[in-house]
């Protein structure tokens, strides 16, 4: 029964993918969208039953399907592990996935390739489920690669625009760099433990098996490199902002709520391993903190509504990695969930705005949408308050937990994280004010067409906004349901913060910080009615920020160009030398041939004479040699 249900959970989206690929065009847009949505909704319902079952029994559901690979002392089974962690992930992957499918039915309705869009989305959900429910690292890797592929397909969905294709390729290549790290990590783990099963490795480590600490650290570091690629951390984050080329529902589903959290899932899944490698944990925490600060700083001055949200995503992911590095896995997971709610809502909200403005993404040409798009505005406001970390919205609880953990372990990281949070509050309210307040700055024609989005778009917004509002209840400070729920999958007991004076002081600081950020944004964009300058007028440090610290340019200079240089070296020098040599041989043979053909006179008498002469020479030679 469990096996069949698990297979249904996995293959419902895959069936949706196949049907949409082969029959989507015939089915028509409405049916194609409905089919895709139902496929994911099926997975959600199955997930829900498993989720309730595991909550009741407290025991994970293990499904062992078949033996996959068997070598001398190494075997890999194909099986699923539906435990507390994977079910939690499935809940929001399929749940938010369903909502975003509903949203896409309306959002993508004018697109001629709508069935293809739903096929890709279904395929993505299929691979994401594979990634999450696998019982060993190899299955996770299949899903890991699969979601990368779908991300590529969906970023480049509007393939007629070359910039979008380039963005898709960039995402894929950056991900591949991380994936290589992940794969090497898997190999090392296979070498160390002769198994890739989570439970086997966990048992081996907890029973104190003798494992080379250096190799263990290298393995953990390699896994983290994989996580860096997928979850857009320094130095591999640059693909995520460019990935905004994809349709907005894709940004919401893949590049905010689900795929980019795969790195956090993996680290949490392997927490028993990372616990034993404190050096790597430090690296993770530092990388996370710096990423969150840098991305937030870049987000301060971006003018593309989706770019701001993208950098905000990178920044929030950085905070999650900060928590992971500090060993507070349950807090990172908590932030993943709240972030999934409010960031999906923000992206979908921005999609609603873009939809109303017929593709306009520049905030300098927006404004005053509050009156026209009431539902979008209210849901957007709730999510913005949540991401800014104001109580009682969900983001406050998760972000505060991260900062509190950082404060107790490392004050520097706490300062960095807090700065990032203040910046977050500023740029999110900058976004909100520029988009929804003051007067409309677009063209008259756009103004004429302004309208609230249809119900299929606003419904997911409302659901997500409610979740963003109340999502914090799953892990209230002092009484955390989530910590209790996740305890069986974490090797170390959850961090428990006493609700003492320090805790309240930290909460106060966080709230005051957020209010400062909001206040600055208010005075600048509401009181002074400032509108960001045109590209050419940006100067000073703001210009550095606006150009994203020139990271892309630096990568181009130190990596892309040298590779091109090596390429052209091989083309111009090495290839020229080799082909010169080969062509030279050909020329020699050709010359010999054209000279040699004159020997063939056609005179049989001459041939026979040469023949006899040859035999005589051989005979003479043999006699002389003796």
């Amino acid at each position, binding site marked *: 029964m469990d096996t069949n249900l698990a297979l249904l959970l996995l293959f419902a989206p895959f069936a949706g993918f196949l049907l949409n690929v082969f029959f989507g065009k015939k089915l028509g847009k409405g049916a194609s969208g409905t089919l895709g949505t139902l496929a994911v909704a099926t997975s959600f319902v199955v997930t829900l039953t498993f989720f309730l079952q595991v909550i009741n029994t407290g025991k994970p559901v293990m499904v062992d399907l078949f033996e996959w690979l068997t070598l001398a002392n190494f075997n890999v089974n194909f099986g699923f592990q539906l435990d507390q962690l994977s079910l939690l992930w499935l809940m929001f992957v399929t749940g938010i996935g369903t909502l975003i499918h509903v949203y896409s039915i309306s959002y993508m309705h004018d697109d001629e390739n709508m069935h293809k869009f739903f096929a890709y989305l279904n395929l993505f959900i299929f691979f994401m489920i594979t990634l999450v429910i696998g019982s060993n690292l190899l299955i996770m890797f299949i899903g890991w690669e699969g979601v990368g592929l779908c991300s590529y397909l969906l970023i480049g969905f509007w393939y007629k625009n070359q910039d979008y294709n380039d963005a898709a390729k960039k995402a894929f290549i950056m991900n591949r760099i991380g994936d290589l790290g992940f794969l090497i990590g898997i190999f090392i783990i296979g070498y160390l433990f002769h198994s890739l099963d989570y439970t086997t490795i966990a048992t081996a480590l907890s029973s104190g098996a003798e494992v080379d600490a250096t190799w263990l650290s290298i393995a953990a570091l390699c896994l983290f490199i994989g996580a860096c690629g997928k979850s857009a951390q320094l130095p591999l984050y640059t693909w995520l902002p460019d990935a905004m080329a994809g349709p907005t529902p894709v940004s919401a589903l893949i590049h905010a709520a689900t795929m980019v959290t795969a790195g956090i899932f993996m680290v949490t899944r392997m927490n028993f391993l990372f616990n034993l490698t404190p050096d790597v944990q430090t690296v993770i925490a530092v990388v996370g903190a710096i990423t969150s600060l840098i991305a937030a700083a870049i987000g301060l001055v971006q003018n593309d509504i989706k770019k701001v949200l993208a950098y905000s995503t990178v920044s929030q992911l950085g905070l999650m990695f900060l928590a992971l590095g500090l060993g507070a896995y349950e807090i990172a997971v908590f932030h993943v969930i709240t972030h999934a709610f409010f960031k999906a809502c923000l992206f979908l909200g921005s999609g609603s705005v873009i939809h109303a403005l017929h593709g306009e993404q520049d905030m300098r040409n927006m404004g005053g949408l509050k009156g026209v798009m009431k539902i979008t505005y209210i849901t957007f406001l709730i999510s913005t308050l949540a991401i800014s970390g104001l109580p009682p919205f969900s983001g406050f609880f998760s972000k505060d937990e991260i900062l509190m953990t950082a404060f107790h372990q490392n004050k520097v990281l706490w300062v960095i994280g807090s700065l990032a949070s203040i910046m977050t509050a500023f740029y999110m309210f900058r976004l909100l004010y520029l988009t929804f307040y003051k007067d409309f700055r677009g063209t008259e024609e756009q103004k004429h067409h302004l309208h609230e989005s249809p119900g299929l778009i606003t419904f997911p917004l409302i659901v997500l906004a409610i979740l963003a509002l109340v999502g914090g209840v799953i892990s209230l400070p002092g009484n955390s349901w989530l910590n209790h729920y996740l305890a069986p999958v974490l090797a170390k007991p959850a961090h428990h913060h006493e609700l003492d004076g320090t805790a309240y002081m930290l909460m106060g600081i966080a709230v005051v910080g957020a209010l400062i950020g909001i206040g600055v944004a208010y005075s600048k964009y509401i009181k002074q009615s400032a509108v960001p300058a045109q590209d050419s007028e940006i100067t000073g440090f703001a210009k550095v920020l606006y150009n994203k610290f020139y990271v892309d340019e630096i990568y181009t200079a130190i990596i892309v160009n040298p590779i091109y240089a090596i390429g052209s070296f091989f083309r111009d020098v090495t290839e020229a030398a080799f082909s010169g040599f080969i062509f030279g041989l050909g020329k020699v043979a050709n010359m010999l041939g054209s000279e040699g053909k004159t020997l063939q006179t*056609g005179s049989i008498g001459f041939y*026979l*004479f040469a023949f006899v002469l040859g035999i005589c020479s051989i005979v003479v030679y043999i006699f002389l040699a003796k």
Partner: protein
Amino acid sequence: MENILQQIGIENYIYLSTLLFCVGIFGVLYRRNAIVMFMSIEIMLNAVNLLLVAFSTYHQDATGQVFVFFSMAVAAAEVAVGLAILVAVYRNLNNIDIDNLKNLKG
């Protein structure tokens, strides 16, 4: 068998076959008629056959004689093919002078 070799020494067989072989070679080199050249080639072949048989007797080893049978069978086949070619040449050119066969010039 030994009697024959006692009566006529092995060296005489060698002389004869050498002579025959040389006759064959000169026939091939000097004559221009394809049929005669063909016959000269057969003479060379038979010179070698003679030598094989002689040494086979001398060494008391039947292998040489067996080998000669093979060689004769092959020669017969070769003659059949060769004469067929000559007939075809004659039909086309009305003579079989090898100096006229220069179409295969490189």
